[in-house]
């Protein structure tokens, strides 16, 4: 696969890992946070932790839009879909997220019309094909996905498709980073910056992290060589005492971002005064809602939304894991009451949540005695 395989080339990976080991030395400990859930997933999927030196600690950030969604919002979405003749459409990521009475898939088993879509435009297509039903699209994602939702709503308006609405749960990344940096137990040295969010917002929005907080941030791609190269760039900055924003993912990310995407978002959305993030609490100006021009396609305006609030059990330590204070396996509930099969807290829900990733990929490796070397 072009633009994928080159960045998975084993010899180059080994070489870059060697350079990381050389730069990291042994004289200090590095705490690096990768903000984006996609990066968390990539780190585990490619087994990158195995080839990083011991003194680099990777802390998984809050960039998992499924994980940070409060359970009440899922219940609200499902409540809307309980109405007769409503089709609940969402990405596959949402299907197993538990609400108070079960996940969307479990509701489907009990008779709700639940459809998995790959694109918001597929949800709009469902509306065209089912004129006697109403399609409610449960929108999630950061700034990467929001423009696509926006364009879809603009299309619905242009075509006068009335049996379609969006339940908007889009969140924005900068306030989440701010919340992480503001927490008193923060101990991060630098950041691996979100790659695909940055195709939309560019690199400029991260400048305050370098200038005001004096932490280096490298915007990174998702292949093994991307992440490893970003680590090299971060270590070089840290060793020389620098703190600046760098773009490793140049083949798709520009400094200014994507103006058409930003225009689409501005056309349809406005910023919510605050939004609840599971594990992080209320964060001001951190999420999007649909503006008055598109009220007709806003599920929260078209339907009665119960506004259910469900808090995580007190024993769940999601917030501490999110901020990097605790490792997943250090949470009281990890692997016992809280597993990927039966998630209690946010970070176990999605495959890119740090607890799920740790549980699925890492957990049993810790029990291994033999060192791994590949023999054919």
């Amino acid at each position, binding site marked *: *696969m072009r633009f*994928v395989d080159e960045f998975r080339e*084993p*010899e180059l*990976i*080994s070489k870059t*890992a060697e350079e990381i080991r050389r730069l990291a030395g042994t004289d200090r400990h590095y705490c690096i946070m990768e903000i984006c*859930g*996609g990066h968390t*997933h990539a780190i*585990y*999927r*490619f*087994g*990158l932790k*195995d*080839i990083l030196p011991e003194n680099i600690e990777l802390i998984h950030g809050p960039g*998992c*839009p*499924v994980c940070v969604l409060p359970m009440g919002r899922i219940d609200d979405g499902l409540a809307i879909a309980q109405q007769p003749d409503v089709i609940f459409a969402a*990405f*596959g*990521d949402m*299907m*197993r997220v538990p609400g108070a009475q079960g996940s969307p*898939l479990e509701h*489907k*088993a009990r008779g709700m019309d639940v*459809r*998995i*879509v*790959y*694109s918001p435009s*597929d949800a709009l297509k469902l509306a065209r094909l089912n004129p006697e039903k109403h399609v409610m699209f449960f929108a999630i*994602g950061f700034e990467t*996905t929001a423009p696509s939702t926006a364009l879809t709503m603009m299309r619905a308006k242009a075509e006068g498709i009335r049996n379609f609405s969006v339940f908007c749960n889009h969140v924005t990344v900068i306030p989440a980073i701010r919340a992480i940096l503001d927490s008193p137990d923060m101990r991060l040295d630098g950041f691996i910056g979100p790659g695909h969010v940055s195709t939309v917002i560019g690199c400029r929005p991260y400048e305050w992290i370098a200038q005001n907080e004096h932490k280096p941030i490298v915007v990174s791609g998702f292949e*093994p060589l991307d992440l490893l190269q970003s680590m090299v760039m971060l270590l070089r900055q840290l060793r020389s005492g620098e703190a600046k924003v760098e773009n490793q993912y140049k083949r798709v990310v520009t400094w200014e971002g994507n103006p058409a995407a930003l225009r689409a978002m501005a056309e349809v959305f406005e910023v919510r005064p605050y939004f609840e993030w599971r594990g992080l609490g209320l964060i001001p100006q951190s999420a999007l809602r649909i503006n008055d021009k598109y009220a007709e396609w806003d599920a929260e305006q078209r339907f009665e939304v119960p506004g259910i609030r469900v808090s995580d059990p007190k024993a769940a330590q999601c917030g501490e894991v999110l901020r990097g204070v605790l490792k997943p396996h250090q949470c009281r509930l990890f692997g016992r009451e809280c597993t*990927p*099969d039966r998630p209690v807290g946010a970070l176990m829900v*999605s*495959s*890119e949540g740090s607890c799920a990733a740790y549980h*699925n*990929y*890492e*957990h*049993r*490796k810790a*029990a*291994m*005695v*033999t060192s*791994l*070397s*590949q*023999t*054919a």
Partner: protein
Amino acid sequence: MAHGAGGKASRRLVEGLFAPLLFGNTPGPLGDAAQVEISGTKVAITTDSFVVKPLTFPGGSIGELAVNGTVNDLAVSGAKADVLVVSYVLEAGLPTSVLEAEVRAMGDAARKAGVRIAGGDTKVVEHGKADQMYITTTGIGHLLHGIAIDPLSVRPGDKVLLSGPIGDHGITILLARGELDLEADLRSDTRSVLPLVEALAHRAGPGVRWMRDPTRGGVATSLNELARDCGLGVVLFEDQIPVRDTVRGACELLGLDPLHIANEGQFLAVVAPEYADAAIDALALAPGGDEAQIIGEIREQPSGSVLVTTLYGGSRIIDMLVGDPLPRIC
């Protein structure tokens, strides 16, 4: 629904409910077929239901799956299917042409697989049930000579073999459902694996410890079951696992792992190291076995788990599937 997907939930259902209440005192791990003795003759018997949607898809249809699936369950248990019986549950209103097409497909598949269909039953249920058609086949076969399957005979150092590329069937079905608006030149790999198993038994029979056909839940689920049953670790070499480009492309696009995707024409075998080369040679020479590969080996650790390793020294644990594989965008 997750209980039927072939992974963890299915296993809980079988082990937690069916086994204690139905299977009585049968000891040991559960395999793809049961071996019983009837009046002094050993036979293998198995049953399977087929509920695939859509009924037809590139490369096959539900009827073909129903024949090959049961033939394969017997084959990987070291048995040659002699006779099948079939049960149809049909939705009222199903066009006769559709039924006829499936019956023909089953007849063709049975002839191709060298198995006789001896009889069957049909029931009709009301409109809205049975997704047009469900098919159950039960197969009986005699044990092949020179091959004996027992997960408890697996040892560290044994090699893990795979008969060919994975993911073809599951991705074909996913695309055929039409919900994802993806097109690809891909077909289900449904076929009888008996000729390959026979070739393996002939050249490397004494060295074969275990076999399985990785259907629902994919290679990862089958190997996790093995790891659990024998208490050892299965270590896979990612770069040696055969996957077609199109399957890879679809999996990357949808965020799926080929190791979790269903196959209907492949099988896994664990073979003693001294027989491994002969085993691969035997498969390579048999029709349809040219893409067979050694994809991993058995080790003490990680005990009870499956580890996928890369050429550059990275690794990850891969678990059984929980529910059906779901596309993701994050």
